[in-house]
């Protein structure tokens, strides 16, 4: 990657942070506070509902929430990445894919800060994951990133053409949240609903990473590997779709 491209990505990320936390008192702390608050609400509601069925439920829920927030942020930032920069797009011809990649990097930065919270929670529960568990976790995060980026390339283009996608995507992300075992354990689900949850790639990635990191167990290895390969292929085609369409949609901004 060229030096100028790197600098451009850096500026995109910096700009986004400046804009997001301008005129706010807690500023940058919101990166950590927001998922923690979501976690707290979820924890109060669902620990009442589910009782003591899940071991280390707080950790289970926290890890799921933060990972899901990561994935959600990549796609939502990606969705808006082109429209947000339309003023620049109509004036200068820079490498367009950097806008999408830059938006995903913002999610990566946020996620990195949330990792600190995860580490603190693990320390509280006296759990020390093995190096292999940590590697598995990181691999899961990489898959989530690739999948999120692949989706972003496609939906960023589609969003320019169909503005309805904003609302559709919000609802879709809410549905996906409940189709992923985040607040509930997979063992609780029976019958036809299980097929639906099983068809969700996030289920496998979450199961794979969470089981390793919290319970030191290896699960969903094959399905996760398949999802990894599919994600890489999807990223390739999604990027091709993006590069083919990007020049044609300039007048639709």
């Amino acid at each position, binding site marked *: 990657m060229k*030096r*100028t491209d790197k*600098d*451009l990505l*850096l*500026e995109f990320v*910096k*700009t986004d942070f*400046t*804009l997001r936390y*301008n005129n706010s008192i807690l500023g940058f702390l919101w990166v950590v506070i927001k998922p923690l608050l979501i976690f707290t609400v979820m924890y109060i509601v669902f620990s009442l509902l589910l009782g003591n069925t899940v071991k280390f439920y707080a950790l289970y829920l926290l890890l799921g929430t933060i990972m899901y927030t990561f994935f959600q942020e990549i796609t939502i930032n990606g969705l808006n990445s082109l429209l947000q*920069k339309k*003023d*620049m*797009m*109509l*004036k*200068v*011809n*820079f490498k367009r894919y950097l806008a999408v990649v830059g938006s995903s990097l913002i999610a990566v930065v946020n996620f990195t800060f949330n990792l600190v919270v995860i580490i603190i929670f693990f320390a509280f529960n006296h759990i020390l994951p093995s190096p292999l568990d940590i590697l598995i976790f990181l691999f899961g995060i990489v898959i989530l990133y690739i999948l999120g980026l692949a989706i972003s390339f496609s939906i960023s283009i589609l969003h320019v053409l169909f503005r309805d996608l904003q609302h559709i995507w919000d609802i879709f992300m809410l549905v996906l949240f409940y189709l992923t075992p985040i607040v509930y354990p997979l063992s609780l689900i029976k019958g036809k609903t299980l097929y639906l949850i099983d068809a969700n790639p996030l289920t496998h990635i979450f199961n794979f990473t969470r089981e390793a990191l919290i319970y030191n167990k290896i699960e969903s290895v094959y399905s996760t590997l398949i999802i990894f390969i599919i994600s890489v292929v999807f990223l390739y085609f999604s990027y091709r779709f993006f590069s083919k369409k990007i*020049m*044609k949609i*300039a*007048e639709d901004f």
Partner: protein
Amino acid sequence: MKETVIELKNITKNFKIPIERRTQMKDYFIHPFRKAKYRSFVAVDNVSFSVSKGEFLGIIGRNGSGKSTLLKIISNIYLPNKGEVISKGKLIPFLELGVGFNPELTAKDNVFLNGVILGLTRDQIKAKYKSIIEFSELQGFEETQLKNFSSGMQVRLAFSIAIQSEGDIYILDEVLAVGDLAFQQKCFDMFRTLKQQGKTIIFVSHSMGAIEEFCDRVILLEKGSISKEGKAFNVLQKYSEISFNKSKISKTDKIDEKLKIKLLNSKGEDTSIFDSNEKVTISLEYNLKEIIVNPNIEFIITRDDGTVVSSISTYNIFNIDKLEKKGHINFVCNNLKLISSEYFISIVIYNKDLTEQLVSIERIKNFKIFSKKTNIKGFFEIDGNWSF
């Protein structure tokens, strides 16, 4: 022949314009499958030209003639429907008054953001930062959010960044439109420097003076296609013709479209540039539907800002019995002692007592006066001699 750096081959660009707009959700429910109707609008129509290295090319035309669309195609922002653009070297666009600022960011952040978008590295921007701010004369406003800047200040900053971006080709759209006089002067100096450095510049402006001063070649766009191309002066003349010949014609019932004014110099040649000492013949050719009895003819000379400089009338001086359906009337001026500038002639034909305007055409003809005496204020030269 110098190296060609930009080449446009048969560029055509269409836009879809909706005929009926669906504004309400209701419309979608009533006719969910009816396709929205569009008509095609040709913004740029089969345009070809090339620009060689070091050339200063001007593009002029009325609003909506396709200038900005063409620049966006050259800058690789719009894809043409037909044709292709080949460009060599780093291209720095400055389109529609700016380089894409974010109003919420401070001036400093915007400099960095736009610098990297224009292809500089952060280190390069750091090195140039001071001169960018200095050129834009915005010292002390560096930490101000851009939304609090005036439009002139924003353009100044945008232009300063663009100019410091070390491109080979600059595409400058309306740089001079909102800057103040001092900044315009600075831009002119910058143009000269860029020209000396052998940079290629495509320049769009409504400032005819700047076009004439800097451009080696000018292209006039009319309804999306090139209507004239060549030396600045010739193209500008054509431009003022198309701009003003469609001027207001009232009382058209008495005239044919072919009312024409020619200006002849001392040698009898039809031209539009005169020396202030030169004899000028204003010749009106008319082609009327009916004979006008006892008319009065008046030529009004105005500057481009509309100020009336003088007028020439037949009233009480030259009695015309009647104007036949076809003919011409001449007025010979011994000299037009006006200061160097561009002027326009309007014509009014009145009835006998000046109580009714029969024909009135504003700005039917334009002309230029060049005077050897420079530094004259006001409207006209005063003849005379100095002595001790």
